[in-house]
């Protein structure tokens, strides 16, 4: 099914391609599905009440819509609606889950957190913050495929471990961790298990019971919903998870998160969740086929390598490096296509992707990486176009590359003494 989308061309008129830009960065964000926008509209001007207003129909109608959305979000992960707490997004959800759990359990002497080096900054920076406040954090290293093992978690668990946080699927590589097994292990040891499921929610089956999850972060803008709204799943039975709220002011959301609810955002999130759940089998199969077609073509380029486990990966994310070509220069050659790179040049800090480095990738391969995400609106034509463009640009940039020249001359680059400035 094709949904007409008008994508505005960039206002920077330096792009000379006449074709409209193609969006292939769905892991970064997604356009809000027009059907979701339609569902949200009445809640701006007509059903505009505060969902907490108990005394009139404006409030009741808003509340009804919020509860309907709550049911939809819960259904995606086989949770009870009472276990869904609305947040402003997954960054807030990650903060609430980890800080909230640690703060609540501090009294019982739990002051240790386990997480992974490849987590999103929302988790890593939260952990760094907690470290400055007396909490000890173990950052588990990943293997070259980006995976951790249950044994690693087992070895890290201590009597004073409060919570273990492992993201379901990585945002840069798409790699999926052994969540169910880690969850079962944590459950056995009385350690709370949190997973940042932002990239996985609505794309692959996620079941809070089957996967033994206690806390789970979700975000609407990754599943064709609006930005600025997310939810945190907080388990209520076996065990009952208690959190110290991070935002105070009225006790909304069962005391977990105060603040007037973003009704329009919630309605959008609920509808997006419904669409995701209903379409998941067909859509993820279609997206997987497109990604695999692109992957097969790109892997025919010499010295191309995929970053992250191929077997345990989301349908839509492809992270691939082309040796001897720098990522940002490749991106420039892909004008008219929106993708991202693990190259230092594309980050504000000039540091290459920490996720790729954690997987043991050399700085060069991190600099030469592209992340391409296939999504709901991607077509086979677009895949064809990007594959052809990448093939051409990689060849052109290699002609300009002194590294490629040395490699063609049979020089082993690792033997060269470079003179960095």
């Amino acid at each position, binding site marked *: 099914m094709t949904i007409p989308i008008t994508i505005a061309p960039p206002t920077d008129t330096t792009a000379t391609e006449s074709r409209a830009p193609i969006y292939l960065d769905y892991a970064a964000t997604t356009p809000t599905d027009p059907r979701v926008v339609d569902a949200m509209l009445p809640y701006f001007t007509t059903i505009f009440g505060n969902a907490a207003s108990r005394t009139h129909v404006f409030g009741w109608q808003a509340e009804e819509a919020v509860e309907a959305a709550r049911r939809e979000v819960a259904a995606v992960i086989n949770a009870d609606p009472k276990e869904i707490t609305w947040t402003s997004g997954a960054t807030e959800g990650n903060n609430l889950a980890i800080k909230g759990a640690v703060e609540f359990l501090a009294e019982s002497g739990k002051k240790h957190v386990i997480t992974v080096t490849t987590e999103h900054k929302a988790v890593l920076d939260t952990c760094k913050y907690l470290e400055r406040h007396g909490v000890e954090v173990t950052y588990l290293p990943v293997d070259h495929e980006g995976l951790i093992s249950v044994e690693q978690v087992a070895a890290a668990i201590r009597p004073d471990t409060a919570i273990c946080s492992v993201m379901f699927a990585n945002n840069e590589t798409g790699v999926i961790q052994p969540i169910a097994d880690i969850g079962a292990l944590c459950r056995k040891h009385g350690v709370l298990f949190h997973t940042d499921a932002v990239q996985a929610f609505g794309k692959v089956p996620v079941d809070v019971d089957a996967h033994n999850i206690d806390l789970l972060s979700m975000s609407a803008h990754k599943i064709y919903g609006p930005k600025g709204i997310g939810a945190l799943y907080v388990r209520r039975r076996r065990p009952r998870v208690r959190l110290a709220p991070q935002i105070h002011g009225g006790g909304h959301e069962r005391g977990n998160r105060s603040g007037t609810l973003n009704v329009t955002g919630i309605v959008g999130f609920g509808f997006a969740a419904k669409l995701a759940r209903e379409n998941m089998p067909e859509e993820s199969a279609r997206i997987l086929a497109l990604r695999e077609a692109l992957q097969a073509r790109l892997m025919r380029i010499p010295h191309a390598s995929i970053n992250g486990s191929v077997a345990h990966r989301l349908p839509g994310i492809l992270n691939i490096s082309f040796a001897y070509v720098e990522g940002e220069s490749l991106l420039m050659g892909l004008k008219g296509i929106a993708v991202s790179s693990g190259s230092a040049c594309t980050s504000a800090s000039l540091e290459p992707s920490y996720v790729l480095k954690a997987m043991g990738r050399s700085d060069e391969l991190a600099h030469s990486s592209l992340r391409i995400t296939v999504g709901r609106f991607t077509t086979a034509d677009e895949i064809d176009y990007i594959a052809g463009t990448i093939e051409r640009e990689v060849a052109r940039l290699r002609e300009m590359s002194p590294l490629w020249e040395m490699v063609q001359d049979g020089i082993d680059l690792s033997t060269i003494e470079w*003179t960095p400035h």
Partner: protein
Amino acid sequence: MAYSNKVIDHYEHPRNVGSLDKSDDNVGTGIVGAPACGDVMKLQIKVENGVITDAKFKTYGCGSAIASSSLVTEWVKGMSIDKAMTIKNSDIAEELSLPPVKIHCSVLAEDAIKAAIRDYQLKHGISEPSPE
């Protein structure tokens, strides 16, 4: 990241991509940077009677790095070695309207031309570096 039109021009139509014969006595080769930093420039000059008659480059790096090295090869053709030695990264950055985060690309290009000149000078027994 908005690139200046000049950077884009050099990226899409780079001047003087290629190689000169390293073993030629009249050729000076400078290789600067490191793959780990995401920037490597190879700049070569052919010198006849103290004047640069040809220049070629190959660069592994972002658009600004490619443009900086391409620009340098354009500038030095026809320059005396002494004049080429005075090229400043600030001139390159200004010409290409490089943003602050890309200034280091112009610095590397300045290093590259100086390295190429020094290599040529060493080949001809001029061991004393020219004044900076």
